[in-house]
């Protein structure tokens, strides 16, 4: 008798087929497109690549995208921590409902979200008309872009924190208060260190989505070149102009951000699992 014993479902044939399938699919749908982006972007050589990046409108799109992320990420970090704290540390009527409502931006198509904001805050919407009297225009300008990006990315931090904070419980916080810690000391010295890796993870995801958001932003921005054009929108504009290399150059920047995000995410996950071992 052979001494080799297999676990249930671990037949050698099935295993080889599944692994092979996973490799082929990953290559075809994930890796190949990434390679294409960079080869197309570099079709005119490095000089052409740099030249495309230094294009006036591309530079502006990069700037606007970073600006939106810079506003969105801190806002949603604070909001997410606040929300997670509220849901896990207090009991009040509607708590479960609130925990469910947090997921609305995940459930709703971003285009629908953009449309809702347009209808509400656009020059014909009721909030928009009122704001219009004071010469405040949110839509087709950067405030609108920030608003929809905040909406689309708001669940990420809270979603990361809620399960962790539920699992950690409030024992340590109670211990801190009994020992005389004020609300701020409690948060700063006990809560924050306990959630820091999950928080960072949420921030990374928020940032990745804020930089890459297309649907909601395209509805409210109006894609005015050099004014309200973000990097993802810029890719589409260049492509429609038949500037294939330019489009892929802009896309390669987004892909680069994605790769950096993945790297940081992996490091954070590794640190997180290590800190849990303690």
């Amino acid at each position, binding site marked *: 008798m052979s001494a080799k014993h297999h676990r249930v479902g671990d037949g050698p044939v099935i295993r080889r087929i599944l692994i092979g399938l996973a490799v082929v699919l990953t290559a075809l749908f994930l890796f190949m497109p990434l390679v294409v982006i960079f080869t197309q972007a570099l079709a005119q050589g490095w000089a052409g690549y740099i030249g495309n990046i230094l294009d006036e409108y591309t530079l502006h799109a990069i700037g606007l995208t970073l600006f939106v992320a810079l506003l969105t990420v801190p806002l949603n970090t604070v909001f997410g921590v606040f929300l997670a704290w509220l849901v896990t540390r207090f009991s009040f009527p509607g708590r479960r409902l609130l925990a469910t409502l947090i997921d609305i931006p995940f459930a709703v198509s971003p285009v629908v979200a953009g449309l809702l904001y347009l209808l509400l805050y656009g020059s014909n919407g009721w909030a928009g008309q009122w704001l219009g009297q004071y010469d405040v225009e949110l839509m087709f300008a950067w405030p609108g872009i920030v608003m929809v990006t905040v909406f689309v990315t708001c669940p990420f931090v809270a979603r990361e924190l809620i399960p962790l904070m539920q699992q950690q419980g409030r024992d340590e916080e109670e211990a801190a208060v*009994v*020992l*005389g810690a004020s609300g701020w000391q409690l948060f700063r010295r006990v809560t924050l260190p306990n959630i820091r890796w999950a928080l960072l993870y949420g921030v990374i995801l928020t940032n990745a989505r804020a930089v890459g958001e297309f649907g909601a932003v395209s509805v409210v921005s109006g894609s005015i070149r050099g004014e309200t054009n973000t990097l993802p929108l810029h890719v589409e504009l260049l492509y429609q102009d038949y500037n294939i290399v330019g489009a892929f150059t802009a896309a390669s920047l987004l892909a680069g951000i994605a790769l950096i995000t993945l790297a940081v995410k992996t490091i954070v996950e590794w640190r997180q699992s290590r800190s849990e071992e303690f």
Partner: protein
Amino acid sequence: MTIEIDGINKSFGQFQALRDIDLAIPDGQLTALLGPSGSGKTTLLRSIAGLENPDRGRILFSGEDVTGLHVRERRVGFVFQHYALFRHMTVSENVAFGLKVMPRRERPSKREIRRRVRELLEMVQLDHLAGRYPAQLSGGQKQRIALARAMAKRPEILLLDEPFGALDAKVRKELRRWLRSLHDELHFTSVFVTHDQEEALELSDQVVVMRQGRVEQVDSPLALYSQPDSRFVFNFLGQVNALSGAISGGVLRQGEAWVRLPESCDDDDAELYLRPHEVRLTQEPSRDAHLPFRIEAINVIGAEVRVELRPDGWESEELWEVGITHSAFNARQPRRGDRCYAVPDVGHLFCDHLSEPKTLSWYESAG
């Protein structure tokens, strides 16, 4: 510092955790809150600390009303059931926490804090672990660090929630003795919650037995064990052998079993409760008692041999248990299935028409 609890009520939604609790906890003593789970003992402890706000009633420390005082201001030491050590801080950072978060004006200097932490760690005999993280400690070590942390601000009241619940039997015993000696040395007022009657009886000066949100009895451990006020307390504080039947003409009878009562009693339904050590095992019934049994099981492990008995010709809810010495066991060599009789020395009679139990003794009539 004394603690007075004056008419405390607390509900969680539909569930009433505490009902009209009145209690005085004397200064400098170790008081146990004892009860089954759901009896409200932890809620009461957390109310004293200020971690729960009672719906009604007052809490006074040394005569001063602290009901409206925030947890932070009450200056009590609290040891949590699962220790609640700060997981990202070292042992010495954990112990120093209470001192470090004090307002700058009151806070001791860094050097003073370091000195105090070292002193506390020496007190709990764990100064060699100052740089470790909680996850690197054993349960008993965590418990002692939690205690050192709670003592850092020199509280006059120390509250402990199931302090030894999660520890194995040997460590538990050791820590119990150690806490007792620490308490005798430092004389703070301590209250601890436990569901382990042995722990309550061994460790405390005063035991508060709780049941369904009410205080059932408050007494010294000895008084509680020898003179329980109610069937519940009697049952909760250790093994009980019970004979329930009807009294008629001074004899309590059920089936083939009967006991002649040494004191006159009105005819009524009644239950006779006997502790294992208040009963002797014989080959023949005595003049005053006829309680036939078959031996169900014999357990020779421990200080004495425990014999489990099944009533023969009458009924009881649970098997009886009687302890005999190892020498008596060796002399007689009883075996499973043997017939024998129980003879009571002392018993506690709960008559349905009386609220207080009657303690009975057969010593004189036997002599």
